């Protein structure tokens, strides 16, 4: 199973973030989602929101993130995905962002406040640059709607495990298997399950046939980083266990 850690850029400090990014890459991350901080992260729980606020205090901007990635171009084995809310991307200039991301070698974008009904112009600009716009689906996304996403989705699919915001949870909801089965039926590309992961044992609750192709962990990693612990230790809990 692929491992996809999420980490807010510039958290807890700018230097530590870049060091951690390298360390994640060297310790089993297949894809790394880099959070672009926003002042009003409506899909996020307190852990990621606080990390965003800290990053903004540290002076992090989309521009500085892209610059840092440009300087480190070609240094990562993992695919890099930028995850952030639409407005900072819009203000940067979406076309310019797509072009520069292509030069840097960004694999994809996740934009939580850009659902299917609004994403067409943005998806077009990204795909013209060979960049994926990752679809997000939730427990309340119907099969029909997943199929509509599947018509345009590329890269992988972000399957949200619970009707809720990001954050560590001890258990998954009972309808998780249903969500995963619908997604499997609708999509031909890999399914990545996110929201709530804190330990590999949580996967045991999901029937083997329904399990995703990748798991995403954000809040648990951010908490680990906040405690001042090395990200390599965090990755060791997962590599080879799932």
């Amino acid at each position, binding site marked *: 199973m692929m491992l996809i850690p999420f980490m807010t850029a510039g958290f807890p400090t700018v230097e530590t973030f870049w060091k951690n990014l390298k360390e994640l890459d060297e310790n089993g991350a297949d894809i790394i989602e880099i959070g672009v901080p*926003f*002042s*009003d*992260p*409506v*899909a996020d*729980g*307190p852990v990621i*929101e606080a990390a965003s*606020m800290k990053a*903004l205090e540290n002076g992090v*901007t*989309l*521009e500085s993130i892209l610059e840092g990635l440009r300087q480190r171009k070609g240094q990562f084995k993992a695919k890099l995905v930028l995850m952030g*809310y*639409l*407005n*900072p*991307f*819009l*203000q*940067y200039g979406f076309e310019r962002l797509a072009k520069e991301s292509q030069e840097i070698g960004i694999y994809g974008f996740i934009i*939580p*406040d*850009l*659902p*299917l*009904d*609004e994403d067409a112009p943005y998806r077009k600009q990204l795909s013209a640059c060979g960049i994926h716009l990752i679809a*997000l*689906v*939730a*427990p*309340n*996304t*119907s099969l029909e*709607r997943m199929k509509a996403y599947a018509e345009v989705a590329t890269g992988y699919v972000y399957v*949200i495990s619970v*009707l*809720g*915001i990001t954050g560590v949870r001890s258990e998954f909801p009972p309808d998780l298997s249903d969500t995963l089965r619908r997604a499997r039926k609708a999509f031909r590309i890999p399914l990545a399950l996110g929201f709530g992961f804190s330990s590999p044992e949580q996967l045991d609750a999901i029937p083997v046939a329904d399990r995703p192709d990748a798991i995403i962990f954000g809040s648990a990693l951010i908490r680990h980083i906040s405690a001042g612990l090395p990200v390599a230790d965090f990755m060791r809990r997962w590599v080879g266990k799932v």
Partner: protein
Amino acid sequence: MRKGYFGDFGGCFVPESLVPPLQELEAAMAKFLPDPQFQAELSDLLCNYAGRETPLTFCPTLSKRLGLNLYLKREDLLHTGAHKVNNTLGQALLAKRMGKTSLLAETGAGMHGVATAAAAARLGLTCRIFMGADDVIRQAANVRRMKLLGTEVIAVESGTRTLKDAINAALREWVVTQKTTHYCFGTAAGPHPFPLLVRDFQCVIGRETRQQMLDRTGRLPDAVVACVGGGSNAIGMFHPFVDDPSVRIIGVEAGGTGEPGCYHSAALGRGTPGVLHGEYTMLLQDRNGQIEPSHSVSAGLDYPGVGPEHAMLQATKRAEYHPVIDRQALAAFQALCHEEGIIPALESSHALAWVLDNPGQFAKGANVVVNLSGRGDKDMDIIRKELGI
């Protein structure tokens, strides 16, 4: 026009998990709003519970001073003290039709919170209100009113601790509670279909004003004026006049303390387009797209965005929007108390202030209607602090 858009503005920029409840709401609007039974029930609530129709009050003293005919649309006389109840009764009734058992809402000044709490109590729904922690302090009387009405008030400590953060918190909660809960959004902003839904329920203001002016003066007003926070009282007044080119439409935004570089809430006058709270609209933001803190002496105008229809009315030049600073609003507040015996909300005082400070903008003897969106009782703590009374 694209669905959910007003010109270039509007849309539905929300997490995927909020798309189904918004679609459910849109379907319910199509099904229930045209239903005569629904309209009859709403009309009964508005008349016999909330106190419609509201009077149109002529202001003799101020009119004389200004050289024009100043009328006030008295939404301040409604039950719970502001126009907000037009919307909350409508949404609460719709929520019942949808089979929901709870309401959830954000509030800034607390007026929408109180109006939601009252509608919930009246219609037998439970209610939770999110309010920025700073607003909980500056509008403490409204917090007590909500609690008396049986509503739980949750103080939001994140971000700028005002309305914008209360909306973030309410949206997050709605993701979790959407099955049983209707999000009773408080202004004509946010993701589609809220700008349409709230406008629909607030248009009663403009429709009544139109008829009252025709009855009283035999013609349409020369200008209608309203304060703009998110834009619900204003769009309710403006929308029924949009197709009457002789009627000048004037929105008034909060200009904050007024010194250069001060925080303010003039998203239309000084903002730039972007996406916040589910809509593409005019926003106060920095060059990196981070939302900037807003400020106004009136908590109800203290918001860094604005409803998409106002952004369109500004872009097409059908309406004009002007800033009024805290000091002007406080002076207008006092003038209305002294000269006409009416204690207005500080929000509404902004609309009044623009007319009082710009009589030269109107022809002599022009008929000008200011929407008095609310009463000032809630503002007594601020007034005591600002005016030492």
